[in-house]
């Protein structure tokens, strides 16, 4: 009696207070629709606000002190550089088939300065798809068997030892040079590097060794630098490679001649090393240019959207703009510059800022509309290149070894005037000298400034703390909607059952049915899992397709598509047919599938944002609306209201856009025009992605494609 009384009492008691966070969660889940609309809009808006929120860059590391020392590069060094340029462009030096003569000239020049010189012979290593090598460091053990003497490159390496230094650190200067078909620009870049090099052999203030790498770019700039870096960082201890090198007569000849002409000098046949690399600069001079002033372009993106420390860019930007009077460029999406909608958006922001300023004078966040457009174009290209995950130059090879590096491309206003040439040699040389002196002052690795940032102009950046807000807002609704769908699916089926059965029957069967129902999502999870498994298989297929010899990109792509469809069908039939099963058992099955899909997309996007933010951001822009809107078309057709009609249209459009190849062609069409689009392009693009070990490839294969398939399956769900 007492027990039952107590029980009834406890039943009557008001519910214990729910903790605020739980209540908030319940509130958000119950209002998930409004919440998701608000969040997604805010997320997209925040993305467009990023150029406005960008901060000015500043030198964060005390030790750098760029520009505090006056440049020491004089006209003497410039004329030295000029001499080299003349010798290299001299037609006599190009007589040799392999361009060995020019390498000899460069080596001789280096030796004359008193630097240590060595040649590094390498066989170009074609980038291949290694399914298990994603994120792993480049392999040193690989030795190619099928090389021939005809296909090798020669890097010329000169090293200056710091006169008072301990030789534990080094700064690398790279000039790509193709001896066979070098333009005037390449020769000029060598001239600039040489004039700096000749200065650095004389100075007393070096604390780090200087390595000048003349990378043989006949097999690609990146390949040459990567080969040298591989050798530098991971020494080979196999006896195979050395005799091989001597088997080639040309190389032998090269070494012999050198050894003969300058015996007892600092020339050595073996691979030379200096200390740990503090940073690296790749210097290029563009051949053609129609700019009105001397500009310098900075390329910073390395593989998987990794960026060098912002301080390095800051130093270059500061010295170029404030010391040498060069204009600094970073990549822009030129097509965006003329878009009128962006301009009007910028004007809206500008006027809003004006209103805000008139309300409260301390609010100063507005930027002019033109600046906004430029900032957006730069930001978009920054996002695009980071998302692509393919390095934008030879500097990418350094980032694989955690060395901060950038490529500087000088585009001078071209004329063959001698005065002009001296001027560009002097200014370019002084810029390089300033950067080297600044980096030379470093005590530790670059660590003070940001590694995660997007540039909106050479002197403005958006840091990770700001751009993550846009992304977080975009993906915040996902778990809420997933939870709400799950709750809905459960409760609605519960209600329908409750109505049909008599109240007395509920008590008995309830617990059992609840137990079954609460595990019903496993069915959907199985489906989602199968589709993701299929995604993994699809991502592996190109490895096998690429083994097929003599296959054009278009056919490869077709094979890939066919195999993918085939594998999806096979998987579907082998591992039961979840959709059919779902139809039989549950009406609301699609809601559960959607819920699990959304959860998996949330996890996928969250993971990707850690690996490569830009990919995750662009992926979220495509996938989040698609996931959130996905609803069986049948239901919309049946409803027949305007709202459902709109939703249907959106679903269809998004269903097309979010398909990875479609998205690719759309983007390509927007950038280059639709005229020359080719089906094979996508294959080539994918090939480049896996060749560069880009995580974007994995993302597309294992997150976006399955998500798209699942959404399509929801759209065509027969309920």
């Amino acid at each position: 009696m007492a027990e039952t009384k107590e029980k009834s009492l406890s039943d009557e008691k008001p519910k214990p207070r729910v903790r605020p966070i739980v209540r908030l969660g319940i509130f958000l889940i119950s209002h998930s629709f409004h919440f998701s609309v608000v969040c997604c809009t805010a997320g997209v808006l925040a993305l467009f606000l990023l150029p406005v929120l960008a901060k000015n860059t500043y030198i964060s590391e005390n030790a750098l002190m760029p520009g505090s020392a006056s440049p020491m590069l004089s006209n003497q060094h410039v004329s030295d550089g000029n001499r080299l340029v003349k010798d290299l462009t001299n037609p006599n030096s190009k007589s040799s088939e392999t361009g060995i003569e020019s390498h000899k000239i460069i080596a001789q020049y280096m030796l004359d300065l008193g630097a240590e010189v060595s040649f590094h012979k390498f066989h170009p290593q074609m980038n291949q798809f290694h399914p298990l090598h994603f994120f792993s460091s480049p392999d040193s053990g690989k030795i190619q068997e099928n090389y021939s003497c005809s296909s090798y490159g020669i890097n010329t390496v000169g090293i200056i030892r710091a006169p008072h230094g301990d030789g534990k650190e080094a700064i690398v200067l790279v000039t790509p040079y193709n001896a066979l078909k070098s333009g005037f620009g390449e020769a000029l870049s060598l001239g600039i590097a040489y004039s700096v090099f000749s200065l650095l052999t004389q100075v007393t203030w070096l604390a780090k060794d200087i390595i000048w790498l003349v990378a043989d770019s006949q097999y690609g700039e990146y390949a040459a630098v990567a080969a040298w870096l591989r050798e530098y960082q991971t020494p080979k201890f196999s006896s195979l490679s050395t005799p091989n090198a001597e088997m080639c007569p040309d190389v032998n000849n090269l070494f012999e001649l050198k050894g003969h002409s300058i015996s007892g000098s600092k020339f050595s046949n073996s691979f030379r090393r200096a200390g740990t690399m503090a940073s690296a600069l790749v210097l290029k001079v563009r051949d053609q240019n129609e700019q009105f002033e001397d500009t310098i372009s900075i390329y910073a993106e390395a593989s998987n959207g990794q960026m060098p420390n912002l301080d390095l860019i800051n130093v270059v930007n500061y010295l170029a703009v404030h010391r040498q009077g060069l204009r600094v460029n970073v990549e822009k999406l030129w097509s965006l510059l003329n878009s009128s909608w962006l301009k009007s958006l910028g004007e809206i922001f500008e006027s809003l800022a004006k209103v805000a300023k008139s309300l409260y004078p301390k609010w100063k966040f507005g930027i002019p509309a033109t600046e906004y457009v430029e900032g957006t174009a730069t930001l978009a290209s920054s996002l695009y290149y980071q998302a692509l995950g393919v390095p934008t130059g030879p500097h990418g090879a350094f980032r694989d070894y955690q060395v901060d590096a950038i490529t500087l491309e000088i585009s001078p206003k071209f004329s063959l005037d001698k005065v002009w040439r001296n001027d560009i040699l002097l200014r370019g040389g002084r810029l390089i000298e300033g950067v080297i002196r600044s980096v030379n002052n470093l005590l530790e690795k670059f660590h003070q400034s940001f590694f995660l940032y997007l540039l909106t102009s050479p002197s403005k950046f958006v840091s990770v703390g700001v751009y993550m807000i846009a992304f977080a807002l975009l993906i915040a609704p996902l778990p809420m909607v997933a939870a709400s769908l799950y709750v809905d699916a459960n409760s609605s089926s519960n209600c329908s059952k409750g109505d049909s059965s008599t109240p007395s029957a509920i008590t008995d069967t309830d617990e059992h049915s609840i137990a079954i129902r609460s595990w019903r999502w496993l069915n959907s999870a199985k489906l989602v899992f199968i589709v993701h498994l299929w995604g993994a298989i699809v991502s592996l297929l190109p490895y096998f397709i690429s083994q097929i010899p003599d296959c054009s990109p278009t056919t490869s792509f077709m094979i890939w598509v066919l195999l993918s469809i085939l594998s999806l069908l096979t998987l579907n039939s082998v591992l039961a047919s979840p959709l059919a099963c779902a139809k039989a058992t549950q009406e609301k099955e699609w809601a559960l599938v959607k819920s699990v899909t959304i959860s998996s997309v949330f996890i996928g996007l969250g993971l990707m944002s850690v690996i490569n933010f830009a990919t995750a951001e662009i992926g979220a822009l495509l996938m989040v609306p698609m996931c959130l809107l996905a609803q069986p078309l049948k239901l919309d057709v049946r409803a027949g209201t305007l709202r459902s009609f709109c939703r249907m249209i959106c679903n269809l459009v998004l269903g097309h856009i979010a398909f990875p190849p479609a998205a690719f062609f759309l983007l390509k069409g927007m950038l280059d025009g639709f005229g020359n689009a080719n089906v094979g392009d996508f294959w080539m693009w994918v090939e480049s992605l896996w060749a560069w070990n880009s995580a974007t490839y994995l993302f597309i294969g294992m997150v976006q494609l399955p998500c798209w398939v699942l959404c399509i399956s929801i759209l065509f769900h027969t309920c």
Partner: protein
Amino acid sequence: METFINPKSLFHLLLLPCLLLYSSIAYNSSPVEAAMHTNNWAVLVCTSRFWFNYRHMANTLSLYRTVKRLGIPDERIILMLADDMACNTRNKYPAQVFNNENHRLNLYGDNVEVDYRGYEVTVENFLRVLTGRHETAVPRSKRLLSDEGSHILLYMTGHGGDEFLKFQDSEELQSHDLADAVKQMKEKHRFKELLIMVDTCQAATLFNQLQSPGVLAIGSSMKGENSYSHHLDSDVGVSVVDRFTYYTLAFFERLNIYDNASLSSLFSSYNPSLLMSTAYYRKDLYKRRLEEVPVTNFFGSVMETIHTDAAYKALSRRNSGRFEDEMSLDQSVHHIKRRMLIKVNDGDEIHDINPEGEEGASKCPWSTFRNKFQKAENVDSLLNYGLVAMIPLLVISTWLVQ
């Protein structure tokens, strides 16, 4: 015979300890302020390392050069340099340090004795130097062997903040630590007057906790202000001197050892618009008027003069008059010479007080002792006279006996 001699020697023996006791009591019981300024010490500290802090080492070395020029000998300067810029690989002029872009003066020339260098410059070692609590193995050259007659200049430069000063990029000296060390120094009679000069950001905050009398403190900037470097040497590629130190040095460059510019003229020479910060000095713990204290009292080794007629006579600690500020320049030349002379003697006297006291029983050079000895001497002579008078008596008595 023995019976006559023994009492006398006994008397002497009894008298000596009494005198010693008396003199030592008289010495110690005198108030500390009354102790005479007898010597000068300087502790110069550069607390920051790394190449881009070149200027801090240059600051310290410049001040080292100045105080040496103004007469503080090397053995009384404790120089602490947290890094070696002269031998830094980034130095365009190896083994040289400049504090001006004209490169006229190499601060790191000959005769620079660095007592604590590199990683030896820690908060612990700094406090040990101040308080004198060293391990037994630490050589005398690395100790601050000051006494209650010492004027100490404590110069510190580096990176500071609100009530702290960074040492070596890894630890901090807080204003409490400094105040505590100074208090200990005061209790251990390690200084008579102490001038703390700090060139850091928010330097004034470092003095907040000081409470020991006789301490004068000046800092380069107030709370919330930065101390800036003066100029950049574009040849070396770093800033070479801080503003506060630069103008301090500029002030001293005009002076020589015979000048008697006062501390107040130094303090008022700081122009906030040139410094880009407000030099702040705290003098509530300092008794003397700044107008009457010559800078050479701290930055040199110049102290008050006591005129004496004879070398060893009339040297009284009590009667020493105040220093005359208004003496003319031509006089001061002689004056200084005498001062130096006396200074040396003073130094000796401090350490030899006890032997002299013992000697005083027979030689009586000190007038103070003379009075005390007057009575004792009378007794002595009475005894002697008595003894002499007894000789004829003895002779007569022996003669009578025979």
